[in-house]
């Protein structure tokens, strides 16, 4: 890979984080999976104030994510639309690797067009360069929201 200026690397990472949200919003599942490295992992985690423990609610490899998306149309599912707002706030670049911390909010818009806040949290992303492009080695979606209306099995 040709050497790029650190600012350019930062911009590529920022763009990947933003793109991940857009792909989820538009149901472009295959492209979302393609953002992950071959050994990439998606985690959905939360901290329970009720039991005082960190919890993992979903852990999926790239292959498991792909299977989940393929199965999704077979499920009875919430027909509402979800929209992400994501703000990458802190990006650290090192040779061949990067970390990005972002804040996200997800809004749910029902069939009548009424929108409400669904969840807030942070993405803690670890990235690697694979085949000349930045890929997610680990996306940890840590939700602050613990009580959901109309839960979805889909990644946030």
């Amino acid at each position, binding site marked *: 890979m040709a050497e790029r200026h650190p600012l350019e690397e930062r911009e590529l990472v920022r763009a990947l984080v933003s793109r991940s949200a857009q792909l989820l919003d538009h149901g472009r599942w295959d492209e979302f999976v393609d953002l992950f490295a071959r050994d990439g992992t998606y985690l*959905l985690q*939360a901290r*329970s*104030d*009720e*039991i*005082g*423990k960190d*919890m*993992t*609610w*979903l*852990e999926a490899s790239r292959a498991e994510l792909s*299977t989940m998306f393929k*199965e999704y149309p*077979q*499920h*009875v*599912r*919430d027909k509402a639309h979800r929209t992400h707002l994501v703000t990458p706030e802190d990006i650290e670049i090192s040779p061949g690797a990067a970390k990005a911390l972002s804040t996200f909010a997800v809004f749910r818009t029902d069939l009548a067009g009424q929108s409400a806040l669904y969840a807030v949290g942070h993405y803690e992303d670890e990235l690697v360069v694979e085949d000349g492009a930045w890929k997610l080695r680990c996306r940890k979606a840590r939700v602050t929201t*613990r*009580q*959901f*209306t*109309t*839960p*979805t*099995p*889909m*990644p946030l």
Partner: protein
Amino acid sequence: MTEKTAPRRWEDPPRLPTTHYVDQRIYTDPAIFAEEQAQLFAGGWKLVCHESELPQTGDYRVLDVVGRPIVVVRGEGGEVRSFYNACAHRGAELVRDLRGNLGRGGFRCFYHLWGYDLKGCNIRMTRPEGYERFGPKADDAGLRRVRTECVAGLVFVSLREDVEPLATYLDGMLSRIDKHLGSAEYEVFHHHSAVINANWKFWNENNTEVYHEFLHILNRKTMVLQPGYHDRRWALYKNGHASPEEVYSHYEAVGLEARADNLLPGMRPSGLLALGVFPDVLIIIRGTVLRIDTMRPLSPDRTLVEWRGLALKGDSAEVRDMRVRQHNQVWGPAGRNLAEDIAAVESQQRNVANGASRYAIIAREENLRPHDDCNLRAYYQEWGRRVGRWAHDVDLPRAKAAAEAESAPRVAHG
């Protein structure tokens, strides 16, 4: 061709025995909701937490029972007690977090610094000389205690002091709970909740009627369409508790691992067992991991559902990871089935609220086999007895319905 019978008038009850349908106003009527709150949730036993949420002396949890704030705390000798979370002085909340540890000093109200030990006795009245003239005395200024009993690690409370003993209430379900939860030490590793836009009984029915497994692609592939699925029967217990016999879940049918190792007590490989405790508790075991559902009815059309995941205390890190993974394959906020169940009950609620659906049919008879609605009929018989209403006819005068429900023959128990 002439019709032999007149077409059904949709505003009339179904042509079924009265035990085999439900007037769906039981899911929408505010007066019935208030009666349920008083008779079932304030006047009966309510599962509030698991003992592992209070591992140390002084550990507490704050919970809500019928809108009342209750603090459950572990005392010096290990006993679990509950109190209203309200200072005996001027009513401020004694503790303001969901959980924590009080230390050996017990409760200390943040407002005027009154104090109470872990038994709820008053141990401090700030500047007590002001109470010398009229009182109160310390022994008359303790915390308001709430009846509390534990069985197999499950903590139940009742706001009614003279409620029947918990073991009597659980009846035949007690030994079932003890077999699976009482023979090993469990701990809660998962907790989440959701507010669903549906009456709490819709959620209970969804949790306990097996026929609805057709809703889930996962259950269709792993169980309903598999041989042997129907070769089991319901066990119905006194007081509305019920459990279908264990079934084998073919996880391999959807590409998941079979559950053969590190099974929980009393479970067969890849076995699935559900224990329904009247009126709002479901304990469900999928071989290696256990789930407990409880409910907090908020209004006739809104319910807070709480889910706990439990594993064995002392699990190695590797085994615990396996249990968490297997828990999340089906359960949890990102589980495969939850969104489907919620879609179903919220859909029902919309149609009973808008009047599109007046009566629900619970008429399946299959000789106690899993798709028999026998458990729902037994449930509504008990519901009627305790609430003082007939589920099939909510217009009957309450006193008459209560008397009839009390004298009605009880469902046979398995």
